[in-house]
């Protein structure tokens, strides 16, 4: 248990050598390895930070670009909306014009159809009125009425203008028309025929070859045909004349 000076001194030396050896072969190499790894980790972390910063910058850039794209898209959409609205308004205008034209056309067509219908109705009314008048006058027609019409025809001839007498005379002067025809609905009395022919021959100054015949279409009254000239005083032709005149007036209107 004594303190051995040799052991004491040599132990001091031994331990100092141990400290040097462990520092040389253990602490320094391992510390260097740890430091190198720390530096490497620090470099990796720095690189990661740089990469993260770059990624962040890229993210910001992409977000900015996305925002720009969004703005452009919104503007393009608004422009498209405006153009679409303008096009819609233009198409609506054209459609409105086309509809107006169609409406006017339809209005004209309806008006024309209405007028045609009115004309048809008027014609039908005229035809019916003519039939009615003809049927009514047919029932009234008779020798007395024809004698009255003959008398009226004679009075009209007597009161006829010289110009008309001149036209009648010229009609009788045509070689192929040197005859006259008197048509009546009923058989004429001889004295009535004689009085009528005598007055005409006296006024025209010509001897005329008279031909008499009966025509039921006249309904009542007579008709004088001399050449191309026709003088009438009968119900049938008067009704026809009335109806034609009314139809002409309808067609012209």
């Amino acid at each position, binding site marked *: 248990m004594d303190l*051995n000076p040799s*052991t004491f001194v*040599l132990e001091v030396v031994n331990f100092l050598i141990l400290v040097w050896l462990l520092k040389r072969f253990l602490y320094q*190499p391992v510390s260097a390895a740890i430091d190198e790894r720390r530096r490497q980790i620090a470099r990796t972390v720095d690189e990661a930070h740089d990469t993260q910063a770059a990624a962040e910058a890229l993210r910001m850039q992409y977000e900015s670009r996305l925002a720009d794209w969004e703005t452009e898209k919104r503007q393009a959409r608004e422009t498209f909306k405006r153009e679409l609205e303008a096009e819609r308004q233009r198409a609506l205008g054209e459609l409105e014009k086309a509809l107006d034209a169609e409406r006017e056309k339809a209005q004209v067509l309806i008006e024309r159809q209405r007028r045609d219908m009115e004309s048809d109705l008027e014609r039908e009314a005229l035809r019916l009125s003519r039939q009615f008048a003809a049927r009514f006058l047919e029932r009234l027609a008779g020798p007395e009425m024809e004698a009255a019409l003959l008398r009226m025809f004679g009075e009209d001839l007597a009161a006829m203008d010289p110009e008309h007498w001149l036209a009648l005379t010229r009609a009788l002067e045509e070689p192929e028309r040197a005859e006259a025809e008197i048509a009546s609905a009923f058989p004429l009395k001889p004295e009535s025929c004689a009085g009528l022919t005598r007055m005409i021959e006296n006024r025209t100054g010509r001897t005329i070859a008279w031909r008499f015949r009966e025509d039921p279409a006249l309904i009542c009254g007579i008709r004088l045909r001399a050449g191309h000239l026709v003088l009438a005083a009968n119900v049938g032709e008067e009704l026809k004349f009335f109806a034609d005149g009314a139809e002409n007036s309808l067609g012209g209107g």
Partner: protein
Amino acid sequence: MEQIDFFARVLGHIGPVAISDSLLTSVLVTGLLAAVSAVLTRRRTALPDRVQVVLEGIVSACENAVRDVIPTAYREVTPFIMSLWLFLATANLISLIPGFDSPTRDLSVTSALAVLVFFSVHWFGIRHQGIRSYLKHYLTPNPILLPFHLIGEITRTLALAIRLFGNMMSMELIGLLLLVIGGLFVPVPILLLHIVEGLVQAYIFGILALVYIAGGIQSGPQQENSSP
């Protein structure tokens, strides 16, 4: 009954120098630690293998322990404290190998280590504060306390040496007595306790040395109020 020579034996002399078995064991431990360190740290890679991980763990643990106490000078102090821990742990546990005795059962060895701690405290203190500033702390807060400072330095060094020596010697003595009295397997539990005791004593010796060195480094006027 054959007499058991428990204490350190002088195996021979080289001139006036006596060679004891504890010294030879210490040299053997030193060579073993140096050889193992040199071999294991020969190939270092960025991606460490298991051996390198263990080595880095040992070094990092020592370094972190020292840095926690001395943040400003841990690079300089760590090799000394780490050598204390490794040497004492190995020396304390080498007696588990049949035929070997722990060198720390020799008061000469523990005294040598305690004296090295004593001088290392002054060495690191003077290096970091300068000799005037370092010696000045013996006169603070009052020069009248200088003898107490000196007594404290001596007694704590003696305490270091005797604590380690006493603990290790007593453990080995108990194991030896149990072996002699009880037989071959009776000291086994004591040997298991001896492992813990050896490691704890190594740690205590190292940590006390670290605290003393930290006190020497931070004992100057500038460092008195600074946190460690």
